[in-house]
Structure formats: structure tokens, C-alpha cells
């Protein structure tokens, strides 16, 4: 059966609750403030939002259910997706179908987390059984060591260099300099990158995201409703989602995008060459390289060459992570999975906070999450287009 398109669905009101390294606020606060910004931006009242899709690591012991009572809302459609960095496009595609089917009229997709001094420790402690049994006992509390493995293997397998990863990180920092809520706004040179203190070989400080507090959110509604509210909106051309792809690969060199990429572009009716900007999931640069390959911008193993041959700054020939990405803006827990999507909506609706991709018509936002044991299990992605393009 052919996949249904997403016609008539609008994605609008991109919201970022500004990030902070640590916060005394709870995840409930970050989600609640995001909702306040969403309804203010849309010019609606709280009760008009009848669907919620929530992603958060630090709501515990609450889930999205408890959040409804905190925020005093009575939605008729509620989802809580435990997919961390992959939650952005997953929330989008579920919300879009709910709106298309009439199960909800306006869905608020909110991803937010707080960061107390012990939040990271607590998140790690209850992250997964496989990590408790087979990763943390080896000293790698958190994803640094896991991405060090993937980076080490990738570099030796495909000949990518620290300079290649550095070029990507430096370009993203350039992009972040104009983003008001970016946590890291001091310019980064390639020398700074290469000479940073080692964290887990071959990763050094600027290869690793900084955990912080914050939230990202957007609304999904019908295009008619968006027009009635006079809201600029983006359209959805296609989305994909995949979990635990290629389980027989002994170590991760590719992820779910590679399984779904052909159908993804077919469904959207565009190809990689039509994409005006890429917002890739970037907790560590090696996963950006895999996205460049798995999403069809270059062949497997050639991302290093691709990065060398392109300018990844927002004004360059391949605008990439135009807000600065998580590596420069910060990783606000599960909000990291929506950062690229929210930035895409901004670029396509002329609501940029920072640098603008001139004339952008079509953008791709890609998400990745959940190092359950030795690899990231969840991937998702969405191609968005400017309305009426």
C-alpha cells in the first residue's frame, strides 16, 4: 500500500525555552513554559491544544500523564515517547497523522529536560538494563565511551581524520555565534578543537555535547487552522522512523536512515540534491558523518571527503546545523532530538533567531537516539518544505 502523504498538515510556532547549564527548575517547568510560549505564539488559549506528544528523561516519577495535571490540560490525544534524541521527527509524524485523522486538532510536541547537578547521574543510572549490565561496569558512565568506539572504528575503517571532524565542529560554532540561546558562543578554531583536552580517545572536549536544561517545542495542526490563525507554517514532505536497524553489524557504521532512505525521498518527491539545509543529530561528530552517508549526501565512508569539499556554515554551499547544533547550543536532554526540527521550521517560516539560509525551500531534519548498549537504536528524519513554495 502506498504511503499516505501529509497534505493539509501544518508545522508551526517553533519555540525554544532558553538553555542553561544547570537549573533548579524541574522538567515540568521547562515543558510548561514551552506550552506557554506555544499558545502565546499561536494566539490561542490552552484548552485549544487537544493533543500532546512529550519527550523527557527527567520528568520521573511522572510521565506525560502526570504532566497534564501539572499543566491543567485535558487533551484527547496524549503520547509520551521514550526515544530521546530521535523524538523530534517521531513526535512530528505521530502528531501529523492524529491531525489528518481528526483525532486531535492542535498537537503540541514538547521535548524538554532539566539539568540539576545530579540529573545526568540519575538519568544514566536508570537508562537501560544492557547499559547497567554490560557498559557502565567498564567505566563508561554515559555515552562518551560508546561514541569513542564508533569514532575509533570509523576513522580506521574509512580514513576520516580528526581534522575532518574538527572542520564540522568549527563550522557549527560559526553558525552558533548568532544564535541567542547557544551555550557556547566563543569562536572555535581548528587548533582549539585539535588541542582540547582528551576525554575518551579519540574524542576530545569539543567532540562532546554539553548536557544542559531547556526545551524545544512546536505545534502541528491543519493548514486551514494555521491559515485561520495567520501562522506561518512549514509542510511535511516525508518522515521516517526505525529502531534497532542492522542488529547483525558487529559495530555501528550505519543506522536506520540507511534502511529507509530510498522510500524517504520517493515519498517526499525530492532527492538529496534538492535539500537546502541539513539539520543532523550531532551529539558527537561521527554520527553526523553517518547521517551524511545514510541520508544519501555521499557514499558510505566518504563523509570525511564530503566535509573537506563543502562549506558547512549557514552561508556556505551546504548549510548544516544552522543554529550551531547541540555541539554548540547544548544538549537539553530529549530536547536535543527536536533542536534541528525546530530550527528547520524557523528557517522555512522566516522566523530565524540566528543566521538565515537565504532562499531555503526544503530542509531535512534528522534525529538519533538511545545508546541502549553498544549503538544508537532509534533513528528518525523529516523533510519539510516552505508552504506554497
Amino acid at each position, binding site marked *: 500500500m502506498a504511503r499516505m502523504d501529509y497534505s493539509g498538515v501544518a508545522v508551526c510556532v517553533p519555540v525554544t525555552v532558553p538553555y542553561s547549564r544547570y537549573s533548579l527548575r524541574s522538567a515540568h517547568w521547562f515543558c510548561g513554559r514551552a506550552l506557554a510560549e506555544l499558545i502565546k505564539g499561536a494566539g490561542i488559549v490552552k484548552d485549544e491544544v487537544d493533543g500532546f506528544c512529550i519527550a523527557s528523561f527527567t520528568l520521573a516519577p511522572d510521565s506525560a500523564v502526570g504532566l497534564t495535571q501539572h499543566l491543567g490540560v485535558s487533551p484527547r490525544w496524549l503520547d509520551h515517547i521514550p526515544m530521546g534524541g530521535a523524538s523530534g521527527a517521531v513526535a512530528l509524524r505521530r502528531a501529523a497523522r492524529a491531525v489528518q485523522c481528526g483525532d486531535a486538532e492542535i498537537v503540541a510536541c514538547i521535548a524538554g529536560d532539566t539539568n540539576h547537578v545530579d540529573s545526568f*547521574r540519575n538519568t544514566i543510572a536508570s537508562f537501560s538494563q544492557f547499559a547497567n549490565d*554490560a557498559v557502565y561496569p567498564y567505566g563508561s558512565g554515559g555515552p562518551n565511551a560508546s561514541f569513542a568506539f564508533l569514532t575509533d572504528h570509523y576513522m580506521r575503517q574509512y580514513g576520516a581524520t580528526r581534522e575532518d571532524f574538527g572542520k564540522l565542529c568549527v563550522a557549527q560554532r560559526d553558525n552558533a555565534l548568532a544564535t541567542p540561546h547557544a551555550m557556547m558562543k566563543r569562536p572555535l578554531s581548528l587548533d582549539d578543537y585539535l588541542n582540547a583536552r582528551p576525554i575518551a580517545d579519540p574524542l576530545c572536549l569539543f567532540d562532546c555535547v554539553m548536557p544542559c536544561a531547556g526545551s524545544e517545542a512546536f505545534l502541528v495542526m491543519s493548514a486551514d487552522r494555521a491559515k485561520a490563525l495567520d501562522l506561518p507554517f512549514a509542510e511535511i514532505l516525508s518522515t521516517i522512523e526505525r529502531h534497532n536497524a542492522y542488529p547483525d553489524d558487529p559495530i555501528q557504521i550505519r543506522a536506520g536512515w540507511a534502511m529507509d532512505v530510498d522510500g524517504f525521498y520517493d515519498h517526499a518527491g525530492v532527492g538529496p540534491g534538492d535539500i537546502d539545509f541539513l539539520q543532523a543529530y550531532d551529539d558527537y561528530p561521527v554520527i553526523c558523518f553517518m547521517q551524511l552517508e545514510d541520508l544519501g549526501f555521499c557514499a558510505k565512508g566518504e563523509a570525511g571527503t564530503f566535509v573537506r569539499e563543502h562549506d558547512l556554515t549557514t552561508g556556505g554551499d551546504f548549510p548544516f546545523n544552522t543554529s550551531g547544533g547541540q555541539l554548540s547550543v547544548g544538549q537539553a536532554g530529549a530536547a536535543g532530538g527536536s533542536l534541528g526540527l525546530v530550527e528547520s521550521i524557523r528557517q522555512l517560516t522566516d522566523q530565524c533567531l540566528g543566521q538565515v539560509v537565504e532562499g531555503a525551500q526544503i530542509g531535512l531534519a534528522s534525529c538519533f537516539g538511545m545508546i541502549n548498549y553498544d549503538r544508537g537504536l532509534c533513528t528518525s528524519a523529516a523533510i519539510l518544505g516552505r508552504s506554497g513554495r
Partner: protein
Amino acid sequence: MTTRLPPPGKKDPVARTRAPTQPPGNRSREAQGLTAMAAVGRFALQVCADCGQVQYPPRQVCGRCLGDDLPWRDVDAMGTLLAETKLHHANDLFFRDRVPWRLGVVGMDAGPSVVAHLAEDCRQGARVKLSLNLDRGGHAVMNARPENPGPNQEDDMQLRELSMDPKDRRVLIVNGKTELGLALTNAFLTAGAREVYVGHGEPWKASPSLEAIKSLDHVTLFPLDVTDTDSVEELAAVLGGKVEIMVNNSYHLRPGGAVDRMDMNITREEIDIHYFGLLRLAGTFGPPMRARGADGEHGACAWVNVLSAYAQINNPAFGTYSASQAAARSLAQCLRAEMSSGGVRVVNAYIGPLDDEWHQMVPPPKLAPDMVAGRIIDALQKGREDLAVGAVAEEIAERLAENPKEIEREIKL
């Protein structure tokens, strides 16, 4: 090649002794199956009884065919190192004290990919051999070493955290002037122990072993009577802060059971030596050893109890002796739990009958002391915590696992 560990220097009396920490010990019930295998030195993983898929990390349902019969089976321990890293930063306090720390991902020939501690001389692409070892918290971890280890491999700092290697450590052997005591003393010296302290009761009682021990370098004799609290406390005051490996070789065997030989004096002596003796040693040497569990690369690491295989199942021919050994075994389990917070591991060696005067009436096979000592050293070097020594002890372990009622009726060993 592994970097040679410098021999221990004199301890700075002013420097703070690093407090012991434990590696992350939060394990699922399934993962404790790995601990059971590591404790006895096996390399076994769950293997699906239906489809043969080797599972890792441990789980309750086969990742291929969804079968739920996943018995633990010995599997091929070889693999290829797919990726490596050296941690320079760790959030966990145990590793924070010990970085840099090397880890790798090994693609096992048997199928799964495993995250493992990585020896200093392993490089990406190399063939490696995995083992399951117990870490300082007593939980199983994967350890990858070169297929053909080079010189000084036992000096690898990460391996030394997993093993209880006697090299450069100070050892106290309780009841050391027996034949087994002499064999242990020699074996520890051969394994590179820095000093061996030999405790012996009844100093008036001469023995050929005592004369042999007196002639050894790096060996010091101390009076020690485990039935006398004052004697144990006095020695602990002198040696408590120095002993890095304790070997409780207390041994008092007399034939007889409950009905055929109701003798309260003998029974009381057995309990006093085997049970109260261990209790006295634990209460005096336990605290200083536990406090020195993280005292550098030569800190306190192991407490060995030489127990009888009859600690696990009563042999009526030595009925009250077996009972006193069972009491000691239970206390040793308590000791294991209490010492674990200091990273000091308790090793129980269950031995079959020794070839000595008190086993005169027992038919062979009987154990030569050198063999027992060798097995204990091997267990310390490999980081095992339970070992059955000799054919009798091994048979008892197997029969107990198979049918405890059968061996209860028919022990005859």
C-alpha cells in the same frame, strides 16, 4: 608488552590512604549468571537451546527466535578487537581514581559484540581472548587480552584490579607450620610475594615444616593462636596494616560424628578453631584490610579461606568437623559481603582430603600440599572466588549441583 610495575616503596606515613570505592554494581538478575561463571573461572554465556544463538548482554528471551530456554554454556572466548578507547575522564568515582582506563569492543567469534576491559598491549584489529573476571565489587566483567600475552602481562594495572596477584604483596598464612602451610609459603614466594608472615600456634611444638620455614628469606614467624582473642588482637596490632593477602589455613580434623562419638571437647575445639577462629581474625584483620583495599597498586586484595569440601555437604565419618566447616563457610559468605565495600575479595578454596596423618584411614585420592597451594595461587592470579581443589572436591561440587539428596545419602568419599 606490558609496562613493568615498579616494586612497592616505603609508604609515606603522612599521605592520605585512598578510600576504597567500587565499580558500578547495579546488575540485573540475568547478569548475575555471568558472576556465577566468573567465580569459578568459566567463560560461559547464555546459548539458546532452540536456535543456538549466543546471547550477550544476558537476557530472558532469545534475541533471535524468542525462545526462553537459555542455559549457560561454555563458548569460544576468541574475538577480534573492533574498537578501542582510553578514558581520560570518568564520572564514576572508582574509575575517576584510576583513569586513564582502556576499553574495547570485541566482536566475538561466537557472535555477540562485547564491551570489555582492555589490556595495555591490545590494538584495534588484533585477535584477543576474553575472560570473565570478578571486579573489585565482586561482579563479573569481560576482560580482553592479547591472544599471546607478552612479558609482564600480570603487571597490567587494569588486570591487577581484577586479579588478586600475590606479586609484590604481603601475605599472612594462619596455621602456617603445617605441610600445607609450608607449601603455601613456598608458592607465595615463587609467585613474587614481597613478604610472607607465618602465624603458628603451640610454639613449643616442633615440626619439619617449621624448620624449613625458618630457613626461608622474606619469611617471618609470628606466634598466633586463633582460639585466643588476645593473641589474634596482638598480631593484628602489629600486622593488620601490612597484610594484603590473608590466608586462613586453620585446620583441626578429628574423625567422628554425633551419635557414634558424642564428644563435646573435640566438637568445641573444632568450632573454636574453624568458626570462632575465623570470627576473631575477621574482627581484627578485617577492618584494616578493608581500609587498605584501594591503597595503590599493592593494596589489600584478598582473604583466602582454606575450607574442607565437607563444608558443603556433611561427611558423617567426619561429622562434627564437617559441621564446623559449614559454619566457617557461612561466616565466610558474611565476610565476603562485608569486605566487598573495601574491594577486598574473599576466596574460598574447598579442598578434598589431604595426604596427612589425620586422613590415615581415608582411601586415596588424597591431595599433595603443593598441588593445593598451586591451585590457590592460580585462583588469586586469575581472580576466582570459589574453587574446588582435587578430584573429591570437584566430584562433590558436581554431585551437589546435580542432586543434593543423592550425595547426602551416598557421600562415601
